[in-house]
């Protein structure tokens, strides 16, 4: 008989491709008569391609998507196959309720998360060592580190680096802890912060630079903007920049270009005394979703389940898509000691907060591209001193609300 063919599309790097192909081979071995056609590529152009396919109705049976794309591709939950219809094939109990909830749109389960990621602090402990400073463990230490760090390592050295977006998130973490509210309401299209909190956000952001704790915006821009990841920055490679505030998933790549004198470590999440919230910003990394047009929904679901929750697959896939969200997969890796120490440390830090319920799920709208541009614009103006703090706060309120209403 004709073999049943499933198409599976993902993006990634070399290691991910290799391991995924191996997993596919394993699945095919286990299911004679099934062929998985692997369609894989780098991340560049992935969204364009997927968009074309979604528009043309030619998308693959199974695909890897970003969590935030759900809002575009499946605004009302009808963009993808409702996995709720394939419960028999899926070990949904492997996933936390929260994980399932964040993948649900309009009551329909649109996909299953591969892993969860959150912003953490990465420090180059060697740099701090050279500067004669301890790695910051509190906000105050961070703000205080700016001057001595620069004095010790030179005027191009800063304790923490981040692009505009990283820095506004960092400042938001502070304000979140202080006021207990994120900027955008988790479920409603409106600004959740109070006017005072907004002003604090803006002020904290500015303080990062006035205190010399973070790389100034113009200088950072002069080195190439947002699309030039930190690991490609010479200042990072040679340890002039002491740390960064970033997703735990990129830990490996941040590490990959450091020269031999540097040492990367995961630091404690800076927390205000009496914080009302962890302030941590986390969300699922990628999801696997199934096309609503697939001719083999059950088989696709089975394959999806295999990738996420099969012990054998877990071993083959390892950490290529981050620490797995599925409980059994995590256990397999943990037991097989396949989790490197740094990753594990970051994971534990995040998991602890999640389990404590101290990470609020961000609004999907917060990651909407247009909304991101809006935020970048305001905070870029701030970074260039082109807008007063009060004006910025007011725009964050008024324009933010208007935009949220528009993108719904």
């Amino acid at each position, binding site marked *: 008989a004709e073999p049943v063919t499933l198409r599976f599309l993902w993006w990634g790097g070399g290691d991910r491709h290799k391991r995924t192909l191996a997993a596919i081979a394993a699945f095919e071995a286990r299911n004679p008569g099934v062929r998985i056609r692997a*369609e894989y590529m*780098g991340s560049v152009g992935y969204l364009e391609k997927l968009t*074309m396919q979604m528009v043309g109705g030619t998308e693959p049976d199974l695909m890897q998507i970003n969590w935030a794309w759900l809002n575009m591709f499946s605004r009302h939950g009808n963009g993808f196959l409702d996995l709720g219809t394939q419960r028999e094939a899926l070990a949904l109990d492997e996933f936390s309720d929260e994980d399932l909830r964040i993948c649900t749109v309009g009551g329909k389960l649109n996909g299953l998360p591969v892993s969860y990621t959150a912003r953490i602090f990465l420090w180059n402990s060697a740099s701090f060592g050279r500067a004669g400073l301890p790695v910051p463990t509190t906000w105050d230490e961070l703000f205080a580190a700016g001057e001595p760090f620069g004095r010790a390592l030179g005027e191009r050295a800063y304790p923490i680096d981040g692009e505009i977006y990283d820095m506004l998130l960092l400042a938001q973490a502070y304000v979140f802890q202080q006021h207990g509210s994120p900027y955008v309401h988790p479920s409603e299209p409106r600004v959740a912060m109070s006017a005072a909190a907004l002003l604090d956000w803006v002020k904290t952001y500015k303080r990062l630079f006035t205190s010399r704790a973070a790389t100034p915006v113009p200088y950072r821009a002069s080195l190439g903007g947002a699309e030039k990841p930190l690991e490609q920055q010479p200042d990072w490679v040679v340890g002039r920049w002491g740390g960064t505030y970033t997703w735990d998933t990129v830990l490996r790549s941040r590490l990959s270009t450091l020269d*031999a004198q540097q040492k990367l470590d995961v630091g404690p999440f800076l927390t205000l005394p009496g914080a009302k919230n962890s302030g941590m910003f986390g969300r699922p990394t990628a999801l696997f979703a199934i096309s609503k047009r697939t001719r083999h929904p059950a088989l696709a679901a089975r394959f999806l389940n295999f990738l996420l929750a099969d012990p054998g697959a877990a071993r083959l896939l390892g950490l290529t898509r981050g620490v797995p969200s599925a409980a059994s997969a995590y256990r397999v890796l943990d037991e097989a000691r396949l989790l490197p120490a740094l990753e594990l440390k970051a994971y534990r830090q995040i998991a602890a907060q999640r389990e404590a319920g101290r990470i609020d799920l961000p609004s999907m709208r917060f990651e909407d591209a247009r909304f991101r541009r809006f935020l970048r614009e305001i905070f870029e103006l701030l970074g260039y001193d082109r807008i007063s703090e009060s004006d910025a706060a007011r725009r964050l309120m008024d324009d933010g609300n208007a935009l949220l209403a528009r993108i719904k």
Partner: protein
Amino acid sequence: MMLYPILWLVGASFKSNAEIFSEIGFWPSRFDIAAYVKGWKTSSEYTFATYFLNSFLIVVPRIVVTVISCVLVAYAFARWEFPGRKFLFSVMVTTIMLPHIILRIPQYLMFKEFGWLDGYLPLIVPSAFATDTFFVFMLVQFLRAIPRDMEEAAIIDGCNPLQLLLYVIVPLLKPAIVSVIVFQFIWTMNDFMGPLIYLSSVEKYPVSLALKMTMGATEEVEWASAIAISVVALIPSVAVFFAAQKHFIEGATSSGIKG
């Protein structure tokens, strides 16, 4: 200034990740072709041999049909008088001017209707209909600069319109045609968006897609092998340019008739 990027690229293919991003110089601290071997093998099921072959499967037919169709059409525009010539000429120039990005989705839907997705046809067939209007326009301009004396002689010699084109115009246009070939080669080799959108099967990927295939957003990248293979990917283009250049600087009419 002109060579620096190439030198840097070649140098970088021997460097460690840290060196690549911190050193502005191009001299690596060690020489090791491991990166090339690794890059060539790729992390996919296929080696670059496949991707190069795929690229040529697109490039070669495309060049052939481009040259034929563009020369024909340019010849008509530059020499022949027919109703609607002016109008069609402006249509041609006009089609160059609309941002292509906006045509992307309609085109995709069209080729989907034709059932051409995941194949090379969408990348080749339009060129057979002189839709690379850049080249048509270019050839027209060249042709309009060439005096008609030789053509008159050929007409008397009994050339029919096609023979005239083949035996007189094409040789005189050689420099321009060679540049069309060079451009089409290099541009098609470098084209990323076209193959990205129309090709799904990895075994059909051309080099341009394969090059970026290992650039995940979050994973660590072995820059040396990524760069090494992009150096290798440049070789055909550079070779074609090198081979072709003596033709576009030695036109048939280059020194004309002296006496």
